[in-house]
């Protein structure tokens, strides 16, 4: 099994390195094919590992020592257990699809080879992240995906906005990474190891405040990667990257790493339910907060990004409330349908020549029938309509909140579910229904390459069936490792009222969205100039506030530090000392006027000074000595 583990882990790296060799040269289709092929290999290995794990085994290997000094010992160790194999499946599935899809999507781009190199490198980092058997190994992957995210967001580096967004994403993640490092330090100095099994086995012997702090710091780390408030702004800006990147990194895999961390560290979080509640509360807040921003946004990709953010909030609610398997399940289902949604958006962008404003589209269902079907499917899944994936995973979270008697969370999540349905179908309606507004801009849309649609097909199938088919086997498998808690509402009447009520609520929201946007788009000036609309449209002014409060002052402070402090104070003092000495020399060199007589006088003055010193010092010395006696 080790062989499969290494194959699953390293084949993306091999692909990345080979593609990287051709990074600077022109497009060579084989890099795309090669990396996709290697990804497929990785996928197949993961499937084999999955069957092995489902049979009740786990694989744990230690490849080699990484850092060993003092008492610290960190190996490159990898573990394939129920949790990581789930993540591996999600990662390899989505990334294989995205790779194949990208062959078509990026076919006209100059940086084709480079793109595949980065994309495969990302998959490798993600695999390291999920497969590592210790916290620092996880951190390698954690930073690795950050790097690849930086590379891929700024892929079109000639665009100012893209490079800015890339840097923003990297730096914001770094802030969270610092917290994570501190968490790791705390674990090491308290437990002397960073291996998961050691840490989890002994975490309960630590005093409560220490565990709490560890939990908080690790969660702050997770907040950065998963773009939770207040570190969320980078995710929407990250949409500057190519759309397959958004599908893979900023919807399906990387952003869910935070959820994965919390799920992985569940023995820690089980010890500190208060922190868990805080996580859940923050998750619910973000779910609603992001959904409100998605309601009014006019950028197709940003709407989906906010939707992702919102769904991440759901996952954190589940994870915070201790329903780790539910969180992981929603993570999986969400990865499938959200990636599908993004890839569909990619098709639309291609057809629309990179136009992103859905208000400039419309009526695309005739020319892009398959894309329409796929995106609608994904939106239905996202909205949580029975029997698609979203119903099983998302409604389960609602049930968790209800069963755990967090009714406020429950109601927030319920309202958010309605909003989710509304903005998803607002988008679908604006793009695919109504007038062909794009004709005004002289755009003649065409359907994407067939193989791209075929590539999307597995995701579509998974979006439909993953909830229904996978739930039970998944539950059985994953609860070997995670706490097995069934969330059932015992009262049947309540259960049915809730399920049907939720479904009706969601369907109503969808219908409202269709009614409002499917025919003609009426722009209600009054609403748009209203305070709330503006607030939401400007993302609660948070990016602006960050810019004003952090970025600009930091730059100004830096300039101040350089030009005022460094040059005018620190350096000036040094130069001042040197200048004083120099000027003293300039002044006193008149002493050396060559006149012997005045030199003799100076000599005598020197003698007198020395005599005075001699008297003063001996007198002082004697005085001290006399006192001592």
């Amino acid at each position: 099994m080790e062989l499969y583990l290494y194959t699953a882990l390293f084949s993306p790296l091999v692909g990345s390195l080979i593609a990287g060799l051709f990074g600077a040269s022109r497009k060579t289709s084989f890099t795309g094919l090669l990396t996709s092929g290697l990804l497929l290999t990785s996928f197949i290995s993961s499937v084999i590992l999955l069957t092995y794990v489902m049979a009740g085994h786990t694989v744990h290997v230690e490849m080699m020592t990484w850092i060993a000094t003092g008492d610290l010992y960190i190996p490159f160790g990898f573990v394939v257990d129920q949790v990581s194999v789930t993540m591996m499946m999600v990662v390899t599935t989505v990334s294989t699809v995205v790779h194949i899809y990208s062959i078509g999507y990026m076919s006209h781009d100059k940086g084709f080879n480079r793109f595949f190199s980065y994309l495969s490198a990302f998959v490798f980092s993600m695999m390291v992240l999920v497969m590592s058997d210790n916290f620092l190994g996880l951190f390698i992957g954690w930073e690795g995906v950050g790097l690849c995210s930086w590379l891929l967001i700024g892929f079109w580096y000639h665009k100012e906005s893209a490079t800015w967004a890339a840097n923003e994403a990297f730096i914001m993640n770094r802030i969270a990474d610092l917290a994570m490092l501190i968490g790791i330090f705390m674990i090491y100095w308290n437990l002397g190891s960073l291996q998961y099994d050691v840490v989890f086995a002994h975490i309960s012997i630590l005093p409560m405040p220490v565990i709490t702090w560890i939990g908080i710091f690790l969660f702050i780390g997770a907040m950065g990667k998963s773009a939770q408030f207040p570190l969320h702004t980078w995710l929407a800006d990250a949409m500057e990257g190519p759309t397959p990147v958004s599908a893979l990194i900023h919807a399906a895999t990387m952003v869910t790493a935070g959820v994965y961390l919390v799920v992985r560290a569940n023995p820690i979080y089980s010890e500190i339910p208060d922190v868990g509640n805080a996580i859940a509360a923050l998750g619910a807040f973000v779910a609603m907060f992001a959904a409100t921003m998605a309601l009014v946004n006019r950028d197709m990709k940003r709407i989906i990004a906010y939707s992702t953010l919102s769904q991440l909030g759901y996952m954190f609610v589940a994870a915070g409330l201790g329903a780790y398997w539910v969180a992981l399940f929603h993570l999986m289902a969400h990865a499938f349908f959200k990636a599908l949604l993004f890839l569909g958006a990619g098709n639309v962008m291609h057809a629309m020549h990179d136009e992103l404003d859905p208000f400039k589209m419309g009526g695309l269902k005739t020319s892009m029938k398959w894309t329409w079907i796929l995106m609608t499917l994904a939106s239905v899944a996202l909205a949580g309509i029975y029997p698609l994936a979203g119903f099983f995973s998302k409604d389960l979270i609602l049930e968790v909140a209800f069963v755990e008697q967090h009714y406020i969370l429950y109601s927030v999540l319920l309202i958010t579910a309605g909003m989710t349905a509304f903005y998803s179908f607002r988008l679908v309606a604006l793009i695919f229904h109504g007038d062909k507004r794009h004709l005004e801009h002289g755009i003649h849309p065409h359907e994407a390459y067939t193989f791209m649609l075929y590539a999307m097909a597995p995701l579509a199938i998974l979006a439909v069936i993953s909830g229904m088919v996978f739930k039970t086997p998944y539950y059985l498998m994953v609860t070997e490792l995670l706490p097995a808690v069934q969330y059932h509402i015992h009262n049947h009447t309540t259960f049915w009222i809730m399920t049907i009520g939720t479904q009706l609520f969601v369907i109503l929201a969808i219908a409202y969205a269709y009614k409002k946007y499917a025919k003609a788009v009426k722009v209600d000036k009054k609403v748009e100039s209203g305070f709330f609309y503006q607030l939401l449209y400007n993302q609660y002014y948070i990016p602006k506030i960050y810019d004003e409060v952090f970025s600009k002052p930091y730059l100004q402070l830096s300039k101040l530090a350089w030009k005022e402090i460094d040059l005018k104070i620190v350096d000036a003092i040094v130069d001042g000392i040197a200048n004083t000495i120099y000027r003293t020399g300039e002044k006193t060199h008149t002493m050396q006027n060559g006149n012997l007589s005045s030199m003799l006088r100076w000599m005598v003055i020197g003698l007198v000074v020395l005599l005075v010193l001699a008297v003063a010092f001996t007198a002082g010395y004697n005085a001290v000595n006399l006192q001592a006696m």
Partner: protein
Amino acid sequence: MQEHILSILIFFPALAAMLGFVVHKDGAKAYGITVAGIEFFLSLWLWHIYDPMVSGMQFMESAPLVSAFGINYLVGIDGISLFIIILATFFTLIGILSLTETRRVKDMIITLLFLEMTMVGVFAALDAIVFYVFWELSLVPMLYIIGAWGGPLRIYASVKFFLYTFTGSLIMLVGMLFMAYFYYQATGQWSFSILEWYRLILPANFQMWLFAAFFMGFAIKVPMFPFHTWLPYAHGQAPTIGSVILAAILLKMGTYAFVRFSLPLFPDAAVAFMFPIAILAIIMIIYAAMVAYAQEDIKQVVAYSSISHMGVIILGTFAMNVEGISGSVFLMIAHGVVSGALFLLVGVIYDRRHTKLMSEFGGLASVMPRYATIFGIMMMASVGLPLTINFVGEFLSLLGFYKQSHSYTLVAGTAIIVGAIYMLSAYKKAFFGPVTKEENKHLKDVNRTELLGLIPLVVIAIWLGVYPKPVLEPINNSVEAIVQLMHDKAQTPEAQKRIPNLATTGTMNSVSEAH
């Protein structure tokens, strides 16, 4: 030969430099490469025959110089100095290989070889006077390099460099003389041998003064805030090769000396000064990073980034535990590789455009993709991405200091944030965006000569990031010896508490042992 390997390593370049005067100037570079190559392979051989399991000094040589005062020519290495010596020989080789200077090449080669002698000498010396002599001698070639091949302000910069560091080292010399005097008072014999000094336990108040005297010399060399202002000038005016050697090796003398002198000689004072120094280190980290962010000149960004990283090294050194000190020694090597590479890279673009202002560039990624890639890798290494060489050192340094203070480490940890800010924004300014300047449109990508110097650095930066064990293990063994020595010498309860006792390890790590 094995017994005299260190003397050969020290004096071979100097001898070769003397012979270099008779070499014809067309063959000077080839001659330099040959000599530096032989020297480098000798140092690799040194590594080969070095026994990593031994924590003490190896290859010791001794010859009396002034026996009345116990001054001996005493050299020897342990795991700490071994790799810095290799780094020094390596960078001399790399520097000469990628030398693009056309003016007075022969003089440059000879100067570099002399410099190599002093650098190896400093790190191999075990006698304080020999150490001091090499320490001061190293100023001379550097002064000459900056003063003869530098930019328009070179005289100012070189004089500033010289006077600044010289002042510091004079204070250090006074400290050394006092130390020897105390040794004389305690034992009735004169000795300048560091190993002899190690055995001396000084009263705490003496330690404070001596620590302060040594600190002045080392801190200026590092350079620590607020003694850092000579560095930007020196880097700004020095030719590429000068900056590379300065950043990669010369700065390490200061931090190395902290580990070699300050910690084992004055453990109580080191603990007493731990937090003030940590504050200085944190100021260095954040302040230098901010200043780096404000720079317009890409070389100054790298120069200030050096200061920022040196802050982390200092912090690791004063963590007083094996993790921190090993990490800081490793980071010395890492920073040498990375900053040396970055200065070489800046030199590449300077050779083409004769400017270092970032506003003059922009969009270089599309014109010079290979250059951008190598720069990107090195930048990421500088930022401290895992699996690059810097991460191991930075992680261990911060991890070590976390044991001493949580809040300080949290503040110092912002290094990873502020570091990313200035590096990424500099990279963005120079490499991203559209190509705006006409003269940038047809720049040539890195050529073969430059790749010859850069590729090994990239390889090392990643190799030691993925597999640091060959370097980390010898360092670890030697550092353990030093920490144990410090613990045994510690007198104040504070110091005894802060410096771990390795001899009875196992209380804290019961968990890992159980594992």
